[in-house]
C-alpha cells in the first residue's frame, strides 16, 4: 500500500517471525529507543508509525506486528497483503526460528513476488556464545533469496537503526523505479537517471 500524499511516501512494513524471537523488542527499540519497558507509558507495540526523512523525502512507515505462534501462521496473508516491506526476525540461538524465516520468505516470494522488499534480522547477538544458526549460512541464504541480512540486538541496541534505514531506502528505491518504469512505458520517454545522491538521514520518531 504505497500512497503519496503531499509529498510523503507511506510504506507498510510487516514484522514476521516466531513467537519469542524478539519482534516486539526490536520494534520498541527502534521507535522508542527502549529495551525493557518498565515505564508503562507504552500501551502496545502492535501497530506503530515512524516518520523519517531520507534525502529530503518524507517517509511514513506503518509497521504491522503479527502474531508469531505457529497456530496463527495461516493468518499471514491478511496481514502482509499490500506490504511494501517485510522484516523477518529469527533468534540466532534458535534454529527453528530460522527455519520459520525460510518458510515466510518462500511464502512471501510466492504471493507477492519481487514487489516486496525483504530484510532478515538475526536477533539476540548479545547471546553470541549460544549461537546455533551459523552466520555464514544465514548470510548466504539471504543473498540467495535477494534479501538483506542484519545482525541485531534489541537489548544492546545494535543493528536496529541500520536495518530499518536500509529497508526504507530500498522501499523508496523500489517505489521510484516502479513509477519511473510506468512513466517510461506509457510515454516511451527515455529516462536518464541521475547518480544516486549520498544517503543521509535524520530521524524523528512518533508513536501512535
Amino acid at each position, binding site marked *: *500500500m504505497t500512497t503519496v500524499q503531499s509529498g510523503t511516501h507511506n510504506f507498510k512494513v510487516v514484522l514476521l517471525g516466531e513467537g519469542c524471537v524478539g519482534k516486539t523488542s526490536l520494534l520498541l527499540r527502534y521507535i522508542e529507543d527502549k529495551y525493557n519497558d518498565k515505564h508503562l507509558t507504552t500501551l502496545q507495540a502492535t501497530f506503530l508509525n515512524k516518520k523519517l526523512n531520507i534525502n529530503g523525502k518524507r517517509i511514513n512507515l506503518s509497521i504491522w*506486528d503479527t502474531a508469531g505462534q505457529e497456530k496463527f501462521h495461516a493468518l499471514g496473508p491478511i496481514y502482509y*497483503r499490500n506490504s511494501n516491506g517485510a522484516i523477518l526476525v529469527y533468534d540466532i540461538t534458535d534454529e527453528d526460528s530460522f527455519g520459520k524465516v525460510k518458510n515466510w520468505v518462500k511464502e512471501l516470494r510466492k504471493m507477492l513476488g519481487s514487489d516486496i522488499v525483504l530484510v532478515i534480522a538475526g536477533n539476540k547477538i548479545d547471546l553470541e556464545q549460544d549461537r546455533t544458526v551459523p552466520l555464514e549460512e544465514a548470510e548466504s541464504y539471504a543473498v540467495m533469496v535477494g534479501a538483506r541480512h542484519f545482525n541485531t540486538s534489541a537489548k544492546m541496541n545494535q543493528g536496529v537503526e541500520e536495518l530499518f534505514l536500509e529497508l526504507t531506502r530500498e522501499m523508496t528505491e523500489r517505489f521510484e523505479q516502479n513509477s519511473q518504469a510506468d512513466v517510461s512505458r506509457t510515454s516511451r520517454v527515455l529516462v536518464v537517471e541521475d547518480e544516486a545522491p549520498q544517503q543521509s538521514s535524520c530521524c524523528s520518531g512518533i508513536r501512535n
Partner: protein
Amino acid sequence: LPELRLNAEPFALPDEVRSPPRASCYDNVHDLRPMSEQASDDGTVFSEPWDSSQWDGLLPPPNGQAYDNIMMRNMRQFMSGMKNYLVKHGEREFEKEVEKERLKLKPTEFLNLDAILEGVMHRLVVRPLRSKLYSLLASWHSADVRQLHSAIEKAQHATPLQLGIKESTKVPSTAVLAVISKHFLKMQEADSPLDKLENLLAAISVMFNAIRGERTLGADDLLPVLAWTVARCRLVCAELEAELMAGLLPAALLAGEGGYYLTALFSAVAVLKRLAPDPGPDSTTPWRRGSGESREVGVAVVRVALPDECRGSIRRVALPCRPGARARDLCRALAHAAHITNPQDYALFALHDGQETMLNENDCPQEVMSEKSGQNFILAYKRIDAKIAWPQQALLSYP
C-alpha cells in the same frame, strides 16, 4: 449544474444478474439529477428529502446473493465521487457555507473538508441504506455467522491457554468486559463506518489497558486476547461489522492504525471459527489452512497474473480463495481488486506452455491448479479479446 459522473465506464453486473429493470448499477447516476431536481426546491444534487428507495440503483438486484461487496464498493465509489465533485465544482451554497465557516475560525484552526464531507456522506448515503446493507450482509454471511455463533459457544468453555493466550498475559476481568461490550454495542448501533471504527478502537484500547503488565504487548498477545474478548462479549456479528467497515471506509484510512485493528478483528474471528469447523465446503474461511489441514499455500491463496494493457506490464495479485470456489467468484474478486469496471469482458485463463485456456465460470480454479501443479502453469485474468504475447520466461520464477 455540471454533469455528475462517478465513473468513466458504467459498471455493469455480470450477465447472470443483468435482469431487465437495470442494466447497470450506475443507471441511477443518470437518474440522479432529474430526480433530485424534481424532488427538491433548490435543485442541488444533495437536496432533501431523500429516502432510501431513491438509492435503489446502488443496490444489487434482490436475487444476487453475493453482491454485498459490489454494493459496498458502489457506495464507496459514490461517496468518494461526491466528495470530489463537491470540492472541485462546489454546489450552490457549498462554497458560501465554507466561506462562512472559515470566517469563524480562530487563527489556529482549520476546516478538514475531507473529514467533514466523509461524515456527511455517511449520514446521507450509509444511514438510509443501513438496513438493506445489513440484511444483504446477513444473508451472504449466514453460514459464517452460524459458524461464529457455535464457535463462540464452544469458546465459553475454553481456557485462555487453549486460545493461545500466554500464561503471563492477563485476560480482561468481567467488569472490563462489560465496558468493552458497551463499545462493541455502540459499534453495532453506529450508522457511520467511521463511528464504528472509533468504537472498535475504543474497545481495543480498554482491553489493552486492562491486560498490560510489566512488558509491552505485541501482536502475540493482542490476537488471542481479542479472540477471547470477542467470544466473552458474544460478538456474533463481529465479521459482519468488520466486512462493513472494510467495505465502506476510505482506502487511506485502512492503510493506517484503524486498518491494523480491523485486520486484528478479522483474524480474531478466524481464530475463533477454528473452534467450530464448518463441514460445508462452501462456508469455510478463506484462510483456513491451519495445523493438521492441508498446508499448501495454494489452497488458501491463488496467484493470478493481471496483464495491464495500457502499460504492457504484468502485475501479479494474490487473493484468498475458499476451497471449492468457482472461477466466477475469483473473477468477481479480481475485477474488484483490479478496479475493472467492465467485468463482463474479462475471464480467467489457464496459461500452460504458451497456450491459453479460458475457464468456465463454474470451473474450480484450485482443482485446475492442483491437476497442473509442478508444471509451468499459471492463472491469468484478462480481457477476453485481448491478444497477449506472454513472456517466454517462466511466469513462475519464484519458488
